[in-house]
């Protein structure tokens, strides 16, 4: 049994219109099943409005299913008394770094989570040190967060989650507002947490280059999972991805086009190395 397990998960919400009496019922998620093994790195793709953020919010019980169930490390997220447990097990990092930092000093921000969990003061300091070290921000502990770059802010946000000692981190487009440097910083940090600390990672992104390192990829469309598999398997289905409003990395697209022009290449080329190797 996996660490995150959704079975027949559905989520509806009611939308009220100004001009009509009848509210509209919208199925944001339509019966999704998935099972994530501990320590995996999962990427979730899908165009805007495909339901991927809604699904992600179920993992730390910001939303609870209206149909079906969601279990995180054996805990049913629908049980209200388990709420704190779920949020400790699964932390979330959002797109805009400015919307999730609350402390006036970096270390204060990182300490906020464990403090809320009722951790002993002494232990909070250990956790803050440890979490900042893991994201490479220890040198910034007494800085004001608003003087950090976007990539640094996101790493502080990640440290704040790490300090809660989670089993799993959900990142909802954490690099969308960053420049290439910041993007690289954040991604390296997330990969390291996954590989060294064994933290399960769910990464929602629009940048296909970030998906290449995932163990598995899930593609969502209209509230359903429409594709799943390894990055290589997913990216060899270029036309299908385009149909769902997604793009592939330039190197994969190039390989695909060369193949269509008659060059003998393997399917699903993901990295520059692979393409160069195959061509030369």
């Amino acid at each position: 049994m996996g660490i995150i397990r959704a079975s027949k998960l559905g989520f509806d919400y009611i939308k009220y219109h100004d001009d009509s009496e009848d509210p509209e019922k919208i199925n944001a998620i339509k019966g999704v099943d998935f099972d994530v093994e501990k320590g995996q790195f999962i990427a979730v793709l899908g165009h805007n409005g495909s339901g991927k953020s809604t699904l992600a919010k179920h993992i730390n019980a910001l939303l609870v299913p209206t149909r079906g169930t969601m279990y995180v490390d054996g805990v049913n997220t629908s049980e209200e008394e388990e709420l704190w447990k779920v949020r400790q097990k699964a932390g979330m990092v959002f797109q805009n770094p400015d919307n999730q930092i609350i402390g006036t000093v970096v270390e204060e921000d990182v300490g906020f989570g464990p403090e809320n969990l009722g951790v002993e003061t002494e232990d909070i300091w250990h956790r803050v040190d440890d979490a900042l070290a893991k994201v490479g921000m220890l040198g910034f502990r007494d800085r004001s967060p608003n003087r950090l770059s976007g990539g640094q802010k996101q790493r502080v946000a990640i440290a704040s989650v790490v300090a809660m000692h989670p089993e799993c981190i959900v990142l909802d487009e954490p690099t969308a507002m960053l420049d290439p440097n910041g993007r690289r910083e954040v991604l390296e940090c997330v990969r390291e947490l996954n590989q060294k600390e064994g933290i399960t990672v769910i990464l929602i992104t629009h940048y296909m280059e970030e998906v290449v390192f995932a163990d598995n990829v899930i593609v969502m469309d209209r509230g359903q999972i429409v594709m799943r598999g390894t990055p290589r398997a997913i990216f060899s289905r270029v036309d299908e991805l385009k149909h769902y409003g997604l793009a592939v990395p330039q190197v994969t697209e190039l390989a695909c086009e060369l193949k269509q022009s008659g060059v003998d290449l393997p399917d699903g080329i993901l990295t520059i190395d692979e393409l160069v190797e195959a061509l030369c």
Partner: protein
Amino acid sequence: MLIELKDVSYTYGKDTVYEVNALNHINLGIDEGEFIGIIGHTGSGKSTLIQHLNGLIKPTSGQILFDGSDIWEDGYNLRELRTHVGLVFQYPENQLFETDVITDVMFGPKNKGLSKDQCEERAKEALKQVGIPENFYKVSPFDLSGGQKRRVAMAGVLAMDPQVLILDEPTAGLDPAGRDEILGQIKYLHDKRGITIILVSHSMEDVAVYAKRLLVINDGRIAFDGSPKQVFTHYRELEQMGLAAPQVTYIMHRLHEKGLTVDLTATTVEEARRSILLALSMKKSGGTEEGGGSPWVK
């Protein structure tokens, strides 16, 4: 020359401990009808630079000319300048505020002193240009999707009928389809309406495809100014500046190192495809272009 910057410098918090030189002696000329991409890492000074172009920031020293006149001369009408040079900020959808779409877009022309009918006409035209259909006119802007909101916000600037449109990362946070849509519309405004475009972007792939001229800002200076092809050949220096070239550039250089004679200036997938096919066929036919030509190039 439409916009000219002469030795422009700008210092934030001058004479305080927080003094930062954001721009250092910038000289730049922008002609009518250009499509310029601006890249630079966060904090490089690119946002400061574009805010000079419509007089939102006054340079600490130096001169800014629009259509030959100094915009900081006494009596210069800055309000009018801002209707000629439209600036679409990052996340412009955060600036929507009216109760319905059409009223929001009419706000700009209304401030310009046009009659209600004229405002409405302008607004409809602008909304059409960004692909927002009529049945959305009376919808609250807050009920729209992210991409739609952004297009409505762009329409708000377009309704002023600007000669120059500056866009600060217009595709941030959009999915690939939304990205293509917005960029396609910007290209349309440039090609069909002749609007001068200045596009600030973090996506090297996007500027490579759309911009005709690329400025690289680093440490408040213009580090490179040339066609995307020329600029991306300096990819190693770009990396030092916290930037990168499109993935294709790296592929071409690696192939070249391995002995395949490909075009190193290719920056788009299509260019790369042609060049690689040509190189492969030449390799096959023994390094010359004669004898069989290139069976793969269509």
